[in-house]
């Protein structure tokens, strides 16, 4: 069986403890990964300053150029994988095998990651808002005559990664260009993408010594977050809550992304159906930027029925189908548990209209796999327990609200697409502190703009600004 080692500052290490990830269909072991014990991680983290010093030896321009090369390698080249090598197609099939994602979705995520690597200069300009990225090398600069200085907040960034979808890796990938070594804990069934990104970077010239890759337990993940200067955590509600009080950690929990329709938008909802279908079902509903609830001041029932009719057309297909729109769950029991949870809360007037259109439940068996087919829950009120939930499959609630309820009723929202020309509502949305990214107009919640800080600003996370004064002859 294929074995993935730990990478201790680039050096492969085969652990005695291993864990296997199974193929989503056969349930047979597909890949084995070395597991790092917590003490080994702590011991390695004592050397993170050495890795930071290595990256400080490069200019930002050099690192941006390497990221550009890495983009091409990631997308097109055969790269090392343990003791063997992996072609791009083998990568696609491997990610699909352990996560269930159809090939077309893996390729879409691959393109997303390659995109951020290729656009590194644009990304850094967006994150830093600096007129000149050379300032990242000197740590000092001048904008319109005002002195500016910043410093790294830590020697490395620890990242606890998820297993649901590879697209999230685009969020940490710019850290290298920001001269920050990476200590990665891959998801237990999505071991592939972080390993491949590291290999692409190394082939592009980034020293392997700035990468740590530690498949490990929950406790090992805790050591990574505690032991690195800055951290990033992808996890569920419980994981997010456990670290919510630590300002060193940027938390990516459920997104609760939303579409709101008000005034003219609510009246003309039909023309936004494609947008809503894409926002809900793209990437099989696995992303935190997938829309999980739609809030309208118009006829919620009619909108929900139309959306249900569209989403009910989504059916399981082969993993290599270029039109595949829904992914099986790697663990069938999880599908059944999630569905039972939704069913248990379908009371007080809430109804799964998608199931009604299909004439069948949302758990489906096809070709030996278990799927969660889309659900459109029409809820009777904004207070209903299913009004604002996220389940990691194409699931959306449709909530009819009064105009004055918006936007306060939305709560924390990673992405909000507002379909309305109501300028006063625009102003209230712009002032709302709970919205991470605001799309005014018909923009899918899934659409990402690389020159915009996305889900937290990585530069602000990794660097801090300081007051700075110097006599002119000292700053050249």
């Amino acid at each position, binding site marked *: 069986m294929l074995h993935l080692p730990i990478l201790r500052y680039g050096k492969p290490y085969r*652990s*005695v403890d291993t864990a296997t990830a199974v193929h989503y269909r056969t349930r047979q072991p597909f890949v084995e990964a070395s597991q790092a*014990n917590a*003490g080994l991680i702590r*011991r390695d983290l004592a050397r993170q300053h050495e890795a930071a010093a290595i990256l400080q030896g490069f200019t930002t321009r050099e690192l941006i150029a390497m990221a550009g090369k890495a983009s091409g390698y990631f997308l097109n080249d055969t790269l090392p994988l343990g003791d063997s090598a992996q072609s791009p197609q083998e990568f696609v099939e491997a990610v699909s095998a352990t996560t269930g994602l159809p090939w077309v979705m893996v390729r879409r995520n691959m393109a997303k990651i390659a995109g951020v690597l290729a656009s590194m200069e644009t990304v850094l300009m967006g994150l830093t808002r600096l007129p000149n990225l050379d300032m990242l090398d000197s740590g000092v600069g001048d904008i319109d005559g005002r002195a500016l200085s910043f410093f790294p907040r830590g020697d490395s960034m620890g990242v606890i990664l998820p297993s649901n979808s590879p697209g999230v890796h685009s969020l940490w990938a710019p850290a290298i260009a920001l001269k920050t070594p990476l200590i990665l804990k891959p998801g237990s069934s999505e071991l592939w993408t972080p390993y491949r990104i590291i290999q692409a970077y190394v082939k592009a010239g980034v020293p392997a010594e700035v990468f740590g890759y530690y498949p490990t337990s929950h406790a090992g993940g*805790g050591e990574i977050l505690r032991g690195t200067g800055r951290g990033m955590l992808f996890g569920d509600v419980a994981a997010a809550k456990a670290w919510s009080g630590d300002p060193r950690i940027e938390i990516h929990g459920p997104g609760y992304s939303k579409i709101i329709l008000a005034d003219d938008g609510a009246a003309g909802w039909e023309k936004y159906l494609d947008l809503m279908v894409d926002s809900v079902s793209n990437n099989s509903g696995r992303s935190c930027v997938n829309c999980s609830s739609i809030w309208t001041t118009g006829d919620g029932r009619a909108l929900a029925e139309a959306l249900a009719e569209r989403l009910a057309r989504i059916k399981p297909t082969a993993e290599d189908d270029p039109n595949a729109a829904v992914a099986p769950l790697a663990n069938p029991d999880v599908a059944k548990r999630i569905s039972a949870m939704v069913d248990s809360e379908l009371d007080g007037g809430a109804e799964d209209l998608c199931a009604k259109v299909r004439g069948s439940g949302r758990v489906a068996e096809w070709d030996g796999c278990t799927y969660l087919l889309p659900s459109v829950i029409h809820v009777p009120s904004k207070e209903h327990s299913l009004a604002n939930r996220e389940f990691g499959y194409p699931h959306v609630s449709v909530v009819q609200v009064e105009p004055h309820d918006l936007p306060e009723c939305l709560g924390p929202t990673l992405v909000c697409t507002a379909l309305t020309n109501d300028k006063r509502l625009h102003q209230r949305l712009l002032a709302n502190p709970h919205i991470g990214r605001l799309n005014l107009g018909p923009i899918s919640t899934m659409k990402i703009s690389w020159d915009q800080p996305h889900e937290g600003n990585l530069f602000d996370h990794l660097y801090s600004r300081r007051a700075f004064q110097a006599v002119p002859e000292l700053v050249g």
Partner: protein
Amino acid sequence: MSTATPTDLFAKVQASKERLDAHVREMVEWHFNPETGCPFWLNWAQEAGWDPRKEVTSYADLDKFGNFQDDELRGGPVRRWVPKGLAHRPVYVFETGGSTGVPKSRVQMDDFRIDYENFSETLPDEHFPKGADWLMLGPSGPRRLRLAVEHLAQHRGGIAFSVDLDPRWVIKLIKRGQIQEAELYKQHCIDQALTILRAHEVKCMFTTPKLLEALCEKINLEKAGIKGVFCGGTEMTPQFHRFAVEELLGPNIYFAPTYGNTLMGLATHKAPEPEDNWAIIYYPPVPRAVLEVVDFDDATRIVGYGETGRVRLTTLTKETFIPRFLERDECEREAPCDQYPWDGVRNVRPFSRFQKSVVEGVY
């Protein structure tokens, strides 16, 4: 590497079984004789309506007792466990658990000394020199380990330095999610150890896996003069075993992993061989204690060699009789070997069906 031929080993295994059966008869006679037994077991026999002294003639016959319920060990009066035949001796009481609720207790007179004197025979003198002083970096308070390690040091002609360490407090911190506080407490313990190591000439030590890791983050033990480390108290994985030998200690410090608890005593490890792939293989101190590996769903069935099951302990000393106690651990069953011609246990770890509720602290 084993030097015994299969025939030799078979003969040794048979001989050890015969010794065990004889030991069982002796212990049952002691614990169920109204002149020497403890109130608990004498009452038990009265209520059970059968006389173990007549019906138990071999180790296998102990199945007639069913599985011992460890709740019996909680609370008082603790003197119900003191055998009448030893009532004239000074009594120690050691506790296990107790971060919440009433801990389990075991009374002892000499068992901890006997167990650790036997264990002492397995320690290589070049790494645990006779006369050398020890550091006991482990739990203090009502723990058997504290006095046992001190006795071990004294038995070998040394003096044991120890630290203040309350594992119950650490477990409370972890259960409350106060991980940072638990870390600070661990550092507090490490600071005490560092002070001792810097102020005294210590060559041997006992510690737990987590404390060993934490200590080695602060100091090079070889440079500090340590020659041998006796490690136990909590789970050790094969990967930890390798990490400890290769990275924490290096080739010049002997690493002696052990598996033990207040009820059993101490199981020593078999010298590692390359084919073990860092598996930690323990053998109990038969006939004083026996470890078996039983089916998860049928605790009367011993699993096959190499198969996984739950650890079942039987303790057979004059001070303590505990038949068929199901530990909160699982492992693989290991075959007898030349040095230990009875069953052993491989890669002991917390019982997976209980795992969510088990909290291991620094200790």
